[in-house]
């Protein structure tokens, strides 16, 4: 079932039975999921056909050519990129059938309840408690930096179920119903003036044991699947030269000669070179993936992009001169998406500061590169084999 020609036939059958022009968007997406053409590398019956991951491109190209609606992966990114692979890897058959279809179709938005005020980079230090009570778990605690929590129907949640175990071993992974009355979502306003994220307070939230993912106490291992998928951000897309933030600044430079200074020119060219090299590095990684030999470059891509985005957006504010002193709008808003391109330089500058913090801080990612790619020894740990309850907080 991995044959490209066969996939094309299946896709055309889908299009014939549900013409995009006359089919309601959600109906089309449901039919696509049921035809196994949602994510072809998933198993049959769960939106896939057990095909190679690379075969998806064949299907996507056919559907795009026919003007079929897509499932807006940006809006449902957390569900698609993090919850789904975790459910697929650790969920029961019942969980897979219940959650994957509405997730993919976009009927149910997901969020991720991992980070806490006292546990960011040291995620395993988390203190949100889940205590067993009959067939349920009772959860109390506070989470933070939760994108989409105000839109989400479900959350992936990690909570401490055994405070007597060392911190990595006493954690369990759950699916949390965000409509539960004990879930209180409050906007968390950021430096951009917007509330893209939330704080989530959990007070006596009852989660049925049937919504546990993986074994009790195995949550750290399950969370690794989620986190690994979070950082796989380099997909199949080719980026053109000047495709990122550097393109915005280059365009301004060309169109506004009155803004140019020699100092800015030096910095612009240095960053142009670095952005182009980062693009080529991504392209090289893509070519390696296509050739079936993924390279370690991916581990560093996010690091590079974070630093570049920050330096380029910083340069852009200065380039704008007097206009750089202004800001488009400080009104508190709740955006569904992070949109760098359609905003002003001040927003880009401020928002890019998050790039080296979200999804793993640059410091933690440098440790990962040093240890997993270069094989350098880890630092001695003082928290190993110490019960979580005995750790300093």
């Amino acid at each position, binding site marked *: 079932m991995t044959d490209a020609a066969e996939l094309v036939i299946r896709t055309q059958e889908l299009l014939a039975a549900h013409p995009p022009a006359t089919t309601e968007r959600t109906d089309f997406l449901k039919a696509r999921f049921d035809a196994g053409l949602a994510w072809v590398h998933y198993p049959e019956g769960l939106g896939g056909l057990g095909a190679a991951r690379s075969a998806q491109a064949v299907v996507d190209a056919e559907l795009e050519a026919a003007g079929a609606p897509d499932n807006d992966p940006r809006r449902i990114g957390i569900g698609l990129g993090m919850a789904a692979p975790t459910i697929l890897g650790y969920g029961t058959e019942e969980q897979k059938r219940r959650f994957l279809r509405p997730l993919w179709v976009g009927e149910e938005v997901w969020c991720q309840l991992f980070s806490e005020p006292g546990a960011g980079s040291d995620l395993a230090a988390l203190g949100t408690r889940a205590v067993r009570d009959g067939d349920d778990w009772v959860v109390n605690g506070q989470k933070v930096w939760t994108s989409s929590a105000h839109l989400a129907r479900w959350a992936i949640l990690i909570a401490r179920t055994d405070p007597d175990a060392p911190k990595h071993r006493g954690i369990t992974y759950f699916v949390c119903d965000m409509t539960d009355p004990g879930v209180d979502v409050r906007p968390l306003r950021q430096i951009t003036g917007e509330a893209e994220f939330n704080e989530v307070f959990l007070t006596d939230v009852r989660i049925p044991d049937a919504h546990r993912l993986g074994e009790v106490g195995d949550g750290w291992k399950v969370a690794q699947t989620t986190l690994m998928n979070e950082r796989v951000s380099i997909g199949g897309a*080719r980026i053109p030269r000047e495709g990122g933030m550097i393109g915005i600044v*280059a365009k301004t*430079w*060309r169109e506004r*000669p009155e803004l*140019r*200074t*020699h100092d800015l*020119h*030096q910095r*612009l*060219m*240095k960053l*142009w*070179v*670095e952005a*182009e*090299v*980062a693009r*080529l*590095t991504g*392209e*090289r990684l893509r*070519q*390696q993936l296509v*050739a079936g030999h993924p390279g370690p*470059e991916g581990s*560093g891509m996010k*690091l*590079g992009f974070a630093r570049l985005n920050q330096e380029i957006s910083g340069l852009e504010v200065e380039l704008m001169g007097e206009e750089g002193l202004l800001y488009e709008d400080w009104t508190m808003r709740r955006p569904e998406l992070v949109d760098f391109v359609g905003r002003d330089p001040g927003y880009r500058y401020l928002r890019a500061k998050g790039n080296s913090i979200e999804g793993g801080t640059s*410091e933690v990612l*440098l*440790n990962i*590169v*040093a*240890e997993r*790619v*270069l*094989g*350098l*020894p*880890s*630092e*001695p740990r003082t928290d190993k084999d110490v019960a979580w309850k005995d750790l300093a907080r």
Partner: protein
Amino acid sequence: MSDLLYTQEEDALRAAVRGLLDDRCDAAAVLARAESDRPHDLELWKTLAGEMGLAGLLVPERLGGQGASHREAAVVLEELGRAVAPVPYLTSAVVATQTLLACESAGAGGGEAAELLGALATGRVIGVLAVGLAVAPGAPLTGVRHEDGALHGELTGIADATGADVLLVPADGALYAVDTAQDGVTVTPQVSLDLTRPLATVSFDAARARLLTPDAAAAVRAGLRAGAALLASEQLGIAEWCLTETVRYTKERHQFNRPVGSFQALKHRLAQLWLEVVGVRAAARNAADALATGSADADVAAALAQSYAAPVAVRAAEEALQLHGGIGMTWEHPVHLCLKRAKADSIAFGTAGRHREALAELVDLRAP
């Protein structure tokens, strides 16, 4: 889009060159030779160029070469960079060869260029472009006069001239071939920062010269562009060696009762360096592929590669030195060979800054 990977043939070529260099070009030997009055390893050159046929990679088969491309030459340079090998590969097999190829394809010089290409391809003749190593592609050429069929004047900073049999000399707008073994040609070694790619002064006193092309500018530009583009692969080799060796050392070296490589301050520096080396690989492959395929983007690719690779190679060597501590300052530890080569390379064929200025024109991001 460029093919940024290595083919199986390129991997095999790398293995062969690395195997030879492991046997024949260890750091102690390079160091001993650098202090002698014969800095080039001509025995090693004979094996690389003659027996392995690498000097003729860029020369078409019809002219006696291998008919390979810049992609393969770049792989050879990565390995030569790792070993800081004292052989005139970049100068003879890349820059001089590319310059002659431009003359040959222009059809000028009555077969002189074709004949020389065949000779250079065998490796038995070493040819060097008599343009200062610091000169960037497209920069104005100066120095030598052509009068009554002979050359007069002096040039400085000519890399590998001490080992050269033939010099390609721009004079009064044209390009000439000059045999060094004749009266009227004097090659005087200069004391070079990089002992493994020695510089010399060349003076001509009524030296006999054969015309290669009346248009030196285009041919020299082609040669220097290939030099700049493929130098990035040599810089990649240097940077990679520095990183690998430093990672190895910091894993073994203990201070404060633990391997120094376990300290986050050092790990972050090495991880950062790794990121930059990964970038150099992409930029260097892109430049080699652009030349190999005759891409319209070759000027951008070459300038981009030099803008990025040169500072990274220097930083890699400087980081390696610092993270080796006191041992890095010693004459017997090879890191100084890398540092001297990397620093000299950062000036060769134009500095990173010069290449960024060239890029600004090429991609329409003009200075005020």
